């Protein structure tokens, strides 16, 4: 078996590992909090997918019209303003229509510093513009981010790969010795 076979084998193994990692990271999680707010003429439900949100990480949001709302927005923006005592500059995000939630807008806004933040929801639609504000507190980042955990956790696989490589050479040496004997 030549180098091409080895390369193909390696590619299959790497693809398998990537697949496993992808699957392990893909969690369908329910929202952490649901808040109903009024933005001008629009009644909205804001779903936050992290509670508390972590500084340095994106806070995933889903903004949907409330079930009994007579009118729904057609565009949603978010501006995150640092609250009192938080040394940071505002960040912005445009939420995109969510194909899985009709009438809903999904996206994420980054809170780069731990502390108090104010999320301004700016909406526009057939009933004109509107605005609502939510207060959130960004917690300090995790002691170990998820990506570092996976990198460390799967690092022994490099050793497994090295062992396989070495044992292929060792097998050839053993077979040669057995043939000579």
């Amino acid at each position: 078996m030549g180098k091409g076979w080895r390369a193909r084998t390696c590619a299959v193994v790497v693809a398998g590992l990537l697949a496993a990692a992808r699957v392990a990271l893909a969690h369908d999680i329910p929202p952490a909090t649901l808040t109903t707010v009024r933005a001008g003429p629009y009644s909205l439900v804001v779903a936050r997918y992290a509670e508390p949100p972590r500084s340095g990480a994106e806070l995933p949001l889903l903004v949907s019209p409330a079930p009994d709302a007579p009118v729904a927005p057609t565009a949603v923006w978010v501006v995150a303003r640092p609250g009192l005592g938080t040394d940071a500059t505002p960040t912005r995000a445009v939420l995109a229509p969510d194909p899985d939630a009709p009438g809903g807008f999904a996206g994420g806004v980054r809170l780069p510093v731990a502390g108090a933040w104010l999320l301004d929801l700016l909406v526009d639609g057939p009933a004109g513009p509107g605005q609502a504000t939510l207060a959130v507190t960004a917690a300090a980042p995790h002691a170990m981010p998820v990506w570092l955990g996976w990198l460390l956790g799967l690092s022994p696989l490099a050793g497994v790969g090295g062992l396989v490589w070495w044992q292929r050479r060792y097998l050839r040496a053993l077979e040669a010795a057995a043939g000579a004997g």
Partner: protein
Amino acid sequence: MQPVGGTLAVAVAPSPVGQEQATRCAYRWRGGAAVLLVWCLFLAGVGLAWDIRWHLVVGRDDFWSPPHLLIYGGVAASGLVCLTAGLVATYRAWRDGPMVAHGVRLLGRVHAPLGVVIAGTGLAVVLLAAPFDNLWHELYGIDVALWAPFHLMGLIGGAWAGLGAVYLVAAQAVQARRQGGARPGPLGLDGWQWLLLFALAALYAELAVIAQPGAVQFPTTELGPVQFSTYPVLLALATTFVGAAAVRATGRPGAATAVLALYLARQLLLALLVPGAIRAAVAAQGLSYRLPDGAPRFPLHEVLVALALLGPALVLDLVAWRAADDLRRPRVALGAGLLAGVPLFALATATTFLLYRAVSVLQVPPEIVLPGPPAPEAVELALPLALAAGALGAALGSGLGGVLRLNPR
């Protein structure tokens, strides 16, 4: 004997006086170390099976839970066996001069059997993973899946250690053949070869634990727009790998079925032991179950899956028997893996769907969200992937079996 390549290579010294006697002596103490290592790792494996059920029905109340004590007790004892074997090999190599029986040389002066080096490395990985796993639970909660970074790190380390035990026992089988001490028993295999199959069954159990979340908790793998069922691919890879290694290491068609039969016996034993052990420990510590009707039941589904695995193993054996080949030739090994992939695909797919139809048997607490069975297109794509995984596993297993058949270190 020629020196082998790589940093672990050792040259054999010219025949010293009494080399034959020293080799026989090494054969004895290495045999003791092999039996002890297999036993200690078996205990750690029992602890692992106990711990997985414990998480599900009791939770993760404390790092020093009874199953954790058994796992880390087994790991510590295995580590002591490896350390002692390394010290003895180093002392003997210093006293008698280096010989094949002293294993490989590390860092210039340290000697150890190759299996001990591999097992020791794996055990170090397991121990390294433990504090990180504890931190991960504190950061992200108790219900992180079995496929969490430091669970996988520990499981990979455990499988690695199990592979070391396989190497150590296989080298004993090689030495027994060379010294004429091998007495064929059932299936034409001697005692060391049967212990080798037992160690391979333990290695398979570890790989099956790694693959198991693919059945229900992560049944679908998404690669961009492409989706496929996870479990058939992983089960095919693990089963053909160990089955082919067994056939080639022993040179006997029938060895793959024997390994899976030993695995079935192990699963049956654990299915009988673990629920009772959990009930006893919960009663003794005054703990409560996560579900109102949460006392662990006999996991019939685990035993049935282990029983059904005899079919694919038989396919591997039949191909080896028909081809009059111990899966040494790559074409035969690949063909056997490909053919065994078909029943493995069917078994894994049926397992996923049947468990979803009777999900209550898993006793999963409501906090753990199950995503549902894979879509039909994901199942369809899993078929060629499972066949490819079966072929790949058999090719890798054949390579491993070749080393096990010949390695005396």
